C-alpha cells in the first residue's frame, strides 16, 4: 500500500513536470543562497520553489503577443512605457524584417516584458529567483565557485552580437533551463531594487548597496565579477529603457496551465 502511494505520488509529480515542460517551463526547487548583493547581513536568502521558462521569449513569440495586443506594437506603444528604441530592429509593427524568429526578443521595455508574462498567466522572475536559477551549471545547482563557469559567463562580455543567435544553443543547466548565460541580459521583476549609483566605489553610506567602493564593501564575493556585471547592468536601467542586449523570460509561482 505504501509502495502504491509512492508510485501514485511519483506519477502525479512526473505528470506535473511533463505538464510544465509542455508549457515551456521547468520546476526549480526551493533553496537558499547568498546573493552578491541585497542580502542584509549576508545571510542566505530563501527562494521558494517556482517555475521558470526553459528559453527566453523569442521574436516570433513576441510577434504573436503584439498582434493580439496592438497597443504594444512599435508605433503605438506609449512613450512612458517604452522609449524610441523599443523593437527598433524590427522592420515594422508586425514584420520582424531580417531578425531571426527563433532569436530572443530584445529592445523591449520592462513594462512590455511584464505585460507579456501577465498575458501568459505568468510573471517576471524576481532578481533572487533569477540569480538562484542562474547559478547552476550542467551538473550542479550552485557552480559559482567553479572557475570555468565564471570564465564562461565572463567570456560572453567579449562576444559581440550574441543576441542574433537562436535560443537553446548554450548549455542546459541543472534545472533544464537554457540561455541563462551567453545569449542576452534578462529583465527581472525587481531589477532596480538594488541601487547602483553608477559610482560603484561610493554607494556605501547612502544607498548601502552598489556604488563603486561600496560595491566591494558590500559584496559577498569580490571575485564574482560575473555577478558584479549583472548587478551593475541592472543598476543602469529604467523601466522604459530598451536595449539591444536585453530580453526576458517568464516565471510562475504555480504550476503553469497548458
Amino acid at each position, binding site marked *: 500500500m505504501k509502495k502504491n502511494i509512492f508510485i501514485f505520488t511519483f506519477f502525479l509529480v512526473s505528470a506535473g513536470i511533463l505538464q510544465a515542460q509542455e508549457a515551456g517551463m521547468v520546476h526549480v526547487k526551493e533553496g537558499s543562497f547568498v546573493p552578491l548583493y541585497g542580502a542584509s547581513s549576508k545571510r542566505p536568502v530563501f527562494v521558494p520553489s517556482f517555475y521558470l521558462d526553459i528559453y527566453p521569449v523569442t521574436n516570433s513569440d513576441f510577434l504573436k503577443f503584439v498582434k493580439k495586443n496592438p497597443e504594444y506594437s512599435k508605433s503605438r506603444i506609449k512613450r512612458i512605457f517604452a522609449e524610441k*528604441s523599443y523593437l527598433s530592429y524590427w522592420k515594422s509593427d508586425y514584420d520582424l524584417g531580417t531578425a531571426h524568429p527563433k532569436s530572443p526578443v530584445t529592445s523591449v521595455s520592462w513594462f512590455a516584458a511584464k505585460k507579456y508574462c501577465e498575458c501568459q498567466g505568468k510573471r517576471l522572475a524576481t532578481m533572487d529567483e533569477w540569480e538562484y536559477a542562474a547559478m547552476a551549471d550542467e551538473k550542479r545547482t550552485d557552480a559559482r565557485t567553479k572557475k570555468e563557469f565564471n570564465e564562461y559567463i565572463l567570456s560572453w562580455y567579449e562576444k559581440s552580437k550574441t543576441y542574433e543567435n537562436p535560443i537553446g544553443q548554450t548549455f542546459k543547466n541543472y534545472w533544464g533551463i537554457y540561455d541563462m548565460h551567453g545569449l542576452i*541580459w534578462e529583465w527581472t521583476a525587481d531589477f532596480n531594487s538594488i541601487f547602483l549609483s553608477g559610482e*560603484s566605489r561610493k554607494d556605501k553610506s547612502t544607498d548601502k548597496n552598489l556604488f*563603486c567602493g561600496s560595491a566591494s564593501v558590500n559584496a559577498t564575493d569580490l*571575485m564574482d565579477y560575473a555577478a558584479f556585471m549583472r548587478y551593475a547592468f541592472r543598476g*543602469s536601467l529604467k523601466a522604459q529603457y530598451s536595449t539591444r*542586449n536585453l530580453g526576458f523570460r517568464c516565471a510562475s509561482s504555480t504550476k503553469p496551465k497548458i
Partner: protein
Amino acid sequence: MNKKNIIPTKMLFFIAVLFMTLFLASCKKDEAVNYTDITTDGEMNAELTAPPFVPKPVGDRKAMKLKLNMEIKEQEGTMTDGVKYTYWTFGGSVPGSFIRTRVGDEVEFHLKNHPDNKLPHNIDLHAVTGPGGGATSSLVAPGHEKVFSFKVINPGLYVYHCATAPVGMHIANGMYGLILVEPEGGLPPVDKEYYVMQGDFYTQGEYGAKGLQPFDMNKAVKETPDYVVFNGKVGSLTNGNELTAKVGETVRLFVGNGGPNLVSSFHVIGEIFDNVHVEGGSTINKNVQTTLIPAGGAAIVDFKVETPGTFILVDHSIFRAFNKGALGMLKVEGNENKNIYSGTIQEGIYLPEGGTIQKMPGNSTAKATVPKRTLNEKIKIGKEIFGTTCFACHQSEGQGIPSTFPPLAKSDYLNADSKRAIKTILHGLTGEITVNGKKYNNVMPAQNLSDDEIANVLTYIYSSWGNNKTEITPEMVKALR
C-alpha cells in the same frame, strides 16, 4: 576689576594674532587664482582626437562653454600581430579621445553608450571637482545618453576613466584617457604635440598567444600583466606609426598612465626632458631623464630635438619595454649636429693587455685549427650559443618579438639566402627588411663570434623551427668575413 581687565587684554592680543594670521593667509591665497568665478564667453563643440594626436592649443581664447560628445564602444581590436582583444573604449580608441580645455571652461558632457554594447559605463574625470568626478551622474545603459556638466577650475593634465563595477576590469579593458586643462593664455607654444598613454593588459594566453584573448581577472588581481603597452597595443608607435619631428623642433608629450596596476618609469632613450610638469600639475622640473607616472596619473614633458635619429619611448622597467610591448619611437629627421652627437668616430680594437697575443708559458700549442664536427655536435654547440647570444631578441623558439625583432622560425628571409644570414651575424644589419610579410626596421649589431661559432649557431637555427636545414661550415663563414 583688575582681573576683569586682564582677560580682555589677553583676548585682544589673541584676536590680533588671529587677524594677522587670517590676513597673511588671505594674502597667500590671492596668489593662487580662484577660477571658479570666471565667466564663460560663447559656446563651441569640443574637438576630440584619437591618439597619438591632440586637439589644437587653446591659445589665448577666453573661457567658453564646451559641448563634448563622447561615444563608448565595446569593440574587437588587435593587441599585436595575430592577437585579438575586446577593448572597451571612450571614442573608439585606447586610450580614449583627448579632451583639451582651458581653465574656467564649462564642459557640457554628452556620454553615449552604443546600442550594441553589453555593459553600462560611466566616466570619472580627475579634472572634475564633484562626487565621483562625474561618475555618479553619468552611469549610462547601452543605447542611452547621459548629460552632465562641470567647470574645470584646476589647470593640469588629468586622467579620466570608467568607474562602473567591476572598476578594475573596465580600466583593464582600455577605458581611460586624458583631459588637459590649459592655464590662462595656454601652455607655451611648441612645434609638435603628441598623446601617449600606457596601460597594462591581462590575457588568458601568454604574450603573443594567438587568437581572441579573453581578459584574465586572476592575472589582473595578481598584477602580472602579459602586455604593457603604449596607446593600447604593441607597435602603436613603431613600424610606420612612429611619432615624427624635425631637428631643432620642440616636442611636447602628454603622457598618461591608465594602469590599472603598474606605475610607469617613462623615459625616452637618447633624450633628456627639458621640462616636466611633474604629475601633470603646475610644478616644473627641468633636465629629467626618467619621470614617474602613477597609475591614474599623467605628466607633460617637452624637449628640443637636437640631432636626427630614432628615439625610443620606453617604460624603463625595461622588461616591459622589450618583452611586453611598452616601446614606441620618435623619428627625428634633419641634419646631423656633430657638436652634440658625433656618431661613431673610430672603430678600434680594445685589448687591455696591449696588442700582442700573450700565452701562458708551457701552453705553446695554441688551438689554431677547429676540429671537424658532426652535424649533431654543431647543433648542440649552436644551441648553447643561441641561448647566450641570440635568444634575448629572437626569443627562445625563434619567434622574435612582433614588430620589433624579426622571427627566425620558418623565416622566409633566413631560408632565402644563407650567405646573407652569415653576413648579418658578421657585420650586423640596419634598415628596413621584410620577414614573412611583416616589415621590421631595427638594428642588429655585428656579433663577436668566431667562424666556428657562427657556423654552429646558424646550423642550429637552420635545423630548428621549420627552417630548411642548411648546414653552415666555418669555411663558408671565413670566406665572407
